[in-house]
């Protein structure tokens, strides 16, 4: 595989979008930034992939038309927090097969209060028929119960999850694009109102309006440019049929092959973006990708590696501090990894040669069903 990311962009995240903001314009803004970062123009693009919950009634082709993309490859993705890995997996193969040479992968949403309420009420038919009538508005209760199961199974307490939120907020201080950058203390975390016990306000991602985009090209087009080479992308969908405790994600199935193909081991990877819809899912995914080994003292790992920021984890602040821009949530971590590997991370820059990015998403009834892992390497 000889395919690299040579540009990344993010439309500024905002909790309260200005009147007149649209999903299409937000996506176009992120795409424009990514192309500028890559030193390319819309005329160079021949492949386009997009994921959005709020593009309706438009589709990928409408965006392509309105941005003037003339394409030989086009896809639209519906996998939420796992959309980035899915689109990247397809894009890599499209470039390798010669179907396209410059692919823009984008995701984003206008996620104001009305859009968020509409999305969570009709997320899928199972939600519409069996969760919304409870009534339940969104997945907080489901992940509260998942968190309780994880606490009981591994002997974790609220402070352990709080240390993850506090560390991510510290990373966010170095990211001008994060919506929450004010330092968060463990007391702030523990004292915040409960949303669904044991989850408090700082366990839940703030919905934001925004979009992310990356530009992917064959390596021969990336000569002389700072790049994040894609070493591997693997995926797992519907790994457990929604049966069981939800404490293992599809990453448990697909991560070993991603590491093997990349020739990188989980203990050696320099920076990690895991899909952080809730701190419990950060723990679950770090275990599933092998960064936290089975049987390890998880509380000690959180304290000595994550809370200390010895481990470069979710260095943008993650969704917990930067915000969750709908379906851009998965792409946010990929943009951050590309920026770190390309030396563009500003005050939060770490020395990094390799990166891993996980995607996780689409709660069918009880927990997420889609997962993927991408391994990247810095190159010139």
């Amino acid at each position, binding site marked *: 595989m000889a395919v690299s990311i040579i540009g990344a962009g993010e439309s500024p995240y905002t909790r309260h979008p200005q009147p007149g903001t649209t999903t299409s314009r937000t996506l176009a803004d992120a795409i424009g930034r990514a192309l500028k970062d890559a030193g390319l123009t819309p005329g160079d693009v021949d492949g386009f992939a997009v994921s959005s919950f709020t593009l309706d009634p438009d589709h990928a082709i409408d965006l392509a038309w309105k941005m003037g993309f003339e394409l030989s490859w086009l896809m639209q993705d519906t996998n939420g927090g796992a959309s980035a890995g899915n689109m990247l997996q397809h894009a890599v193969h499209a470039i390798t097969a010669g179907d396209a040479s410059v692919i823009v992968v984008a995701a984003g949403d206008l996620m104001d209060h009305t859009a968020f309420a509409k999305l969570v009420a009709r997320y899928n*038919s*199972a939600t519409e*028929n*069996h*969760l919304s*009538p*409870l*009534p*339940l508005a969104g997945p*907080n*209760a*489901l992940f*509260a*119960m998942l968190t*309780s*199961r994880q606490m009981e199974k591994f002997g974790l307490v609220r402070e352990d999850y709080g240390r993850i939120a506090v560390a991510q907020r510290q990373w966010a201080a170095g990211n001008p694009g994060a919506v929450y950058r004010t330092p968060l203390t463990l007391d702030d975390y523990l004292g915040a*109102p*409960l*949303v*669904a*016990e*044991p*989850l408090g306000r700082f366990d839940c991602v703030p919905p934001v309006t925004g979009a992310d985009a990356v530009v992917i090209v064959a390596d021969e087009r990336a000569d002389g440019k700072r790049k994040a080479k894609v070493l591997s992308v693997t995926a797992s969908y519907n790994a457990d*049929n*929604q*049966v069981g405790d939800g404490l293992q994600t599809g990453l448990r199935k697909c991560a070993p092959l991603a590491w093997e193909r990349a020739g990188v081991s989980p203990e050696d990877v320099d920076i990690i973006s895991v899909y952080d819809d809730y701190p419990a899912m950060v723990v679950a995914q770090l275990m599933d990708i092998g960064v936290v080994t089975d049987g390890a003292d998880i509380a000690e790992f959180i304290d000595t590696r994550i809370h200390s920021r010895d481990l470069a984890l979710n260095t943008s602040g993650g969704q917990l501090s930067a915000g969750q821009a709908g379906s851009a949530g998965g792409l946010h971590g990929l943009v951050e990894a590309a920026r770190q590997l390309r030396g563009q991370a500003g005050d939060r820059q770490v020395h990094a040669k390799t990166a891993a990015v996980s995607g996780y998403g689409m709660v069918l*009834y*009880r927990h997420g069903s889609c997962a993927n892992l991408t391994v990247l390497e810095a190159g010139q």
Partner: protein
Amino acid sequence: MSAIIQTCTNCSASYFPARLICRHCHGTEFADDKADTGVVETTTRLSNGLQIATITCPGDVYLIARIIGGTADAGDRIRLTNDPNDDTAVAAFVPLHGTEL
């Protein structure tokens, strides 16, 4: 007013929410079955005061329910109902399984 569970008419595997193909025998014919009780596996209390629970039933069936008519603890055997007003005694409200897929 029990919860309604989907059952494969060929191999009796149970599902909730309803599926299109039985993942055990690959059959496509299903019937509705009543489930009168289940066991509370996990609960959470929302900021609006509602208690939400995960309920287990035989055959790897997991239901997300709202506790009505009282409160429930993990390990309790609890009555299941598809009527949110059936709250004269403690029960787990499980919105009706629809046949539409």
